[in-house]
């Protein structure tokens, strides 16, 4: 017998505060307090230089295949192009995302970053901290087993004057100026470091590319794609300098020196709807979005991704906005032909 149900539906206005999260290069998956110098490379990197091809497929069992295809192709092109930008946060009427919806392409760009080895440059939710302390730069708690969170004189979490006690920095920074919103010249360990001893004068900790930190460097509406947190009605499809620098630091190879034989360039290729790719993208389940990866050693502190699955909650449950517009960027398909 069908139960008789009374429903009173109350749909209330939700005051959406897209709470702002309070290049450089950022941080890598698998780095930790005991292994702070780990650099994680994308799939298939074995220490040999050249073009590193990583295939990206949509799982045949995925939902929303037709809707998501353009976003997948666009996000692949974004990571292939590695073009750092400022002003990559586009809100409200300035973007094509309807109010109350979440941009699938922006979320995918973030998760693809995880799938190729990048971690959050901020402490994020994995720290166990609440907002806004998650905005502090990624670090290990250090010997006192607690995060030391001194905001410093500028009152901005994640900035260069933060006082972090014995926290072990895990965020690679540009040594000349500790500025995560620029990237010029060589990107390797001659110009980037994780050691706080290499900070420039005036800095007490590595600055991360959080949008509130950006204002201290004279840029606005700018944030690393890898910064944790996706807002509603927010386009963040383009990479920041921190995102690009993190990947380029890895691309300098196991000798961590740009311009040598072990350097590689990342080439994500779209494999269509198929199984067996290096990165599988699927829309399914009840979680918002994540990438799960496996890893293996390459050499010393260098690891590589061995498997990656990026999963996004179903469109039946989440108000995804699927961008229908192909970007103008070059997209290489697995058969080698461009569109």
């Amino acid at each position, binding site marked *: *017998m*069908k*139960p*008789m*149900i*009374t*429903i*009173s*539906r*109350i*749909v*209330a*206005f*939700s*005051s*959406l*505060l*897209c*709470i*702002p*999260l309070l290049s450089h290069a950022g941080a890598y*998956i*698998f780095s930790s307090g005991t292994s702070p110098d780990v650099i994680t490379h994308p799939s298939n990197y074995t220490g040999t230089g050249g073009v590193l091809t990583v295939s990206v497929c949509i799982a045949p069992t995925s939902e929303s295949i037709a809707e998501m295809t353009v976003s997948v192709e666009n996000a692949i092109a974004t990571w292939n192009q590695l073009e750092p930008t400022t002003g990559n946060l586009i809100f409200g009427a300035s973007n094509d995302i309807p*109010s*109350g*919806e*979440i941009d699938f392409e922006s979320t995918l760009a973030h*998760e693809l970053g*995880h799938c190729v080895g990048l971690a*959050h440059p901020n402490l*994020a*939710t*994995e720290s166990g901290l609440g907002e806004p302390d998650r905005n502090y730069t990624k670090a290990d708690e250090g010997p006192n087993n607690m995060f030391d969170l001194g905001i410093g004189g500028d009152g901005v979490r994640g900035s260069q004057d933060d006082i972090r006690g014995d926290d072990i920095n895990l965020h690679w920074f540009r040594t000349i100026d500790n500025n995560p919103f620029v990237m010029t010249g060589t990107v390797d360990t001659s110009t980037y470091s994780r050691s706080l001893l290499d900070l420039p004068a005036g800095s007490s900790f590595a600055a991360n590319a959080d949008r509130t930190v950006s204002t201290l460097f004279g840029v606005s509406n700018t944030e690393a794609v890898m910064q*944790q*947190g*996706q*807002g*509603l009605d927010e386009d963040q499809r383009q990479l920041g300098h921190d995102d690009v620098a993190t990947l380029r630091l890895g691309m300098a190879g196991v000798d961590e020196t740009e311009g040598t034989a072990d350097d590689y360039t990342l080439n994500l290729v779209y494999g269509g709807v198929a199984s067996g790719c290096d990165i599988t993208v699927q829309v399914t*389940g*009840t*979680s*918002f*979005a*994540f*990438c*799960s*990866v*496996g*890893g*293996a050693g390459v050499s010393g502190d260098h*690891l590589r991704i061995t498997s990656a*699955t990026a*999963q996004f909650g179903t*469109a*039946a*449950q*989440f*108000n995804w906005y699927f961008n229908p517009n192909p970007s103008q960027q070059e997209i290489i398909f697995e058969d080698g032909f461009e569109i």
Partner: protein
Amino acid sequence: MLYKHLFVLCCFVVVPLSAAQAESLRYEKIFNQVTAKDNRLILSVDENGSVALHRPLFMTRSGDYQWQLDAQALNTLWSLMDQQSLAQVDQALLNRNLAQLKQTVLVSTSNTDISYFEWVANASTEMHSLEVEGLEAWAGIFKDQSDLQILQRIEQDLWQWINLQLQQEGVQ
């Protein structure tokens, strides 16, 4: 867009539970990666079958819902909760097992959604609770970890139950 709707349907049946069947449930899924102030799905069911559901704005069919279950529907829900299996899951042991598993293989996930289960068992006043971060991801990685699989299955069943309830009442 600001809007409020209040629909009250007549002809409901309420069958109060006996004192011996003191069961209640609270389930939450916290979507930590969404920066909206309201970022959690909340389902609560009390011992009388009163249901309250909150879906945040970024979810389909967002809003707050309240409805009443009769005894049969309530029993169906409790069976989904699989309380016998749930009662066997110990939070501390689950945490230790998960931590140990993470040490054995080089894996990582960016899933920071938190699944929270809180219930009062049948004929009891003791409240139990379980919480797992990244449940869906870790259950997918550690397929032989029985506690994770139990919780994952219950979570999936709850989501399906919610969908069915909303569909039955024509909520699009």
